[in-house]
């Protein structure tokens, strides 16, 4: 199991060194050595002309077999209303199901959900709906048990869910119970035309590296996807589908944890994930009071207020405004980055925005690399000027 280097075959040519995306190979005394951290990706094996590097594949059990069929999307709701990530996953799920020639099912737990027909319009063939008052507030235990039961009963080959705080909290538990693989925060999902396997691509190392991951022998193949990674499709009201109500079995599906209360701490009117325009500030804003200037611009434009990590770390704005790797992923029509340098972790959360405007006094700031329009200048002059111009019209 793992990687083997045949030192007799190695001529110390060093051809393999640059092939390792993690830079783990080195030549010592004309022989290649591997440091810790290998993911067995096989790049060095291909690069070696002397067959000195061998990746031993695990003794694969035969593929999980055809008993698992269908693509499932877990559709998350809050207060009976589905989150937009559910529709985003539906559009990609439809493509996956079509490629595989199989059905697309949506799983929805909650109370008072009346969007089942809409889910069908957006591409679902079947909607499994478990409706009960207990399911309305997001209770991890109930969702975990409910989803495991359905998966065991209907055996889908693929299950995808939003990488929201709920999804990232309970989907790994489902995967652990089913003893299957799960790939977090995917930004790409494709079907391998040769093997029919789900190719799950995700950023790793803080967005510095992309990795494509498969789950070869276990089923279902499971992934979480961050909101705003895929685009919502267009509905077709003529589509036909089936709504299947699933009983909520109170005896079997129970929760050990209890939700005592919820504290809403979004301070502005427009929620970040739903905003068409986001005005966002970074370290360059300087201090908490200066965020008022950005709030004013946001107010004029009907925008939501965002932030990179440093202002949140320093307590200038609440965490709920943070955009990036450990904050929210957003994809507004317009993202205005003020005094944000553009660390990869921040870019990971906003670079798919339709239009990006960067205002920064450092012309070399990486944010300009992703910006559609850049203004190199002092944000404390540029932003007031924009406010004035927008107000005057």
């Amino acid at each position: 199991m793992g990687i083997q280097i045949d030192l007799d075959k190695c001529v110390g040519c060093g051809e393999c060194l640059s092939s390792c995306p993690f830079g783990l190979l080195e030549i010592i005394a004309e022989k290649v050595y591997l440091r810790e951290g290998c993911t067995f990706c096989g790049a060095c094996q291909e690069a070696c002309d002397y067959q000195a590097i061998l990746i031993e594949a695990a003794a694969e059990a035969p593929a999980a077999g055809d008993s698992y069929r269908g693509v499932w999307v877990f559709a998350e709701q809050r207060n009976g209303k589905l989150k937009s990530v559910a529709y985003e996953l539906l559009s990609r799920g439809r493509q996956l199901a079509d490629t595989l020639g199989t059905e697309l099912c949506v799983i929805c737990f909650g109370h008072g959900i009346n969007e089942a027909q809409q889910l069908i319009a957006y591409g679902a063939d079947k909607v499994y709906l478990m409706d009960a008052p207990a399911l309305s507030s997001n209770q991890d235990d109930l969702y975990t048990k409910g989803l495991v039961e359905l998966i065991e009963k209907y055996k889908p080959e693929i299950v995808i869910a939003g990488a929201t705080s709920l999804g990232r909290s309970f989907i790994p538990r489902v995967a652990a119970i089913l003893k299957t693989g799960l790939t977090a925060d995917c930004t790409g999902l494709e079907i391998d035309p040769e093997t029919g396997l789900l190719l799950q691509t995700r950023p790793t190392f803080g967005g510095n590296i992309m990795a494509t991951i498969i789950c070869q022998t276990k089923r279902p193949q499971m992934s979480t996807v961050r909101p705003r990674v895929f685009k919502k499709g267009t509905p077709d009201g003529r589509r036909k589908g089936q709504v299947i109500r699933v009983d909520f079995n109170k005896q079997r599906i129970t929760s050990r944890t209890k939700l005592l209360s919820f504290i809403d701490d979004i301070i502005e009117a427009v929620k970040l994930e739903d905003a068409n325009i986001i005005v966002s500030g970074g370290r360059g804003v300087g201090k908490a009071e200066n965020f008022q200037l950005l709030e004013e611009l946001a107010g004029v434009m009907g925008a939501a207020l965002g932030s990179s990590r440093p202002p949140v770390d320093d307590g200038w704005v609440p965490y709920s405004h943070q955009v990036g790797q450990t904050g929210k992923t957003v994809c507004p029509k317009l993202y205005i980055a003020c005094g944000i340098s553009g660390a990869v972790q921040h870019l990971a959360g906003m670079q798919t925005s339709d239009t990006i405007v960067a205002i920064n006094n450092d012309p070399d700031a990486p944010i300009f690399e992703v910006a559609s329009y850049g203004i190199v200048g002092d944000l404390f002059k540029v932003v007031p000027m924009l406010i004035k111009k927008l107000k005057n019209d």
Partner: protein
Amino acid sequence: MNIVVCLKQVPGTTKVNIDPQTNTLVRQGIKNIVNPFDTYALEEGVRIKERYEGKVTAISMGPPQAEEALREVISTGADEAILLSDSAFAGADTLATSHTLARAINKLKQYDIIICGRQTIDGDTGQVGPELAEMLGIPFVAYVSKIEEIDNGYMRVKRMVEDGHEVIETPLPTVITVVKEINVPRLPSLRGLAKARSAVIPIWTAQELGVDKNMVGLSGSATRVIRVFFPQRVHHGEILQGDLESQANSLIDKLREAKIISGS
């Protein structure tokens, strides 16, 4: 109160550079560190111990050099540390990792609270905590930002969700993952440093854990990385020229032309 903190040694990659010639990560000069999110987990464990008495045991699965990370957390308050290290553990995905950690925690026998960081900064998955909870068959709460109270076999915590906080009550034992808002980790004390130097850190291998080798490492992993590559950024932006006013005018005009904002 028996507290177990799971942690990982990771490359301190926040300032990672890419060699333009070879297109690979530049490793030189990158020190290994304790995963930053795990330092909050350790600190919270130590605070619980200080408040309710007990013991903090740090566990890490990794190569032999991960012992450095365990010494580091002894200097900041862990009472004991155990390294899970075996060539059979290499190449583990989150499923195999959590299986290995669960076996080690079962071997400890006594545990009330297991604390993990919300995610690592290298893998970024955040899956080991919840998977570990399931393998131990105990409750799980993610993204804890405050431990409000521990009493009579229950713990009340505040956790972060997208649009606010939830207050959750969970019976013990339980697994939680913590966010950085929960505390400010302390620096090592002189006493801690001395203790870290002399501490004996046992190494538990696959044999000591009694694990099936097909459940750990690469063979126990359900997922496999088949390709790694660097993200492509295509840059076709425009830096607006001219004085301040013309820059502002030109920006507003462009946004209006593209119908991104309304107005004349």
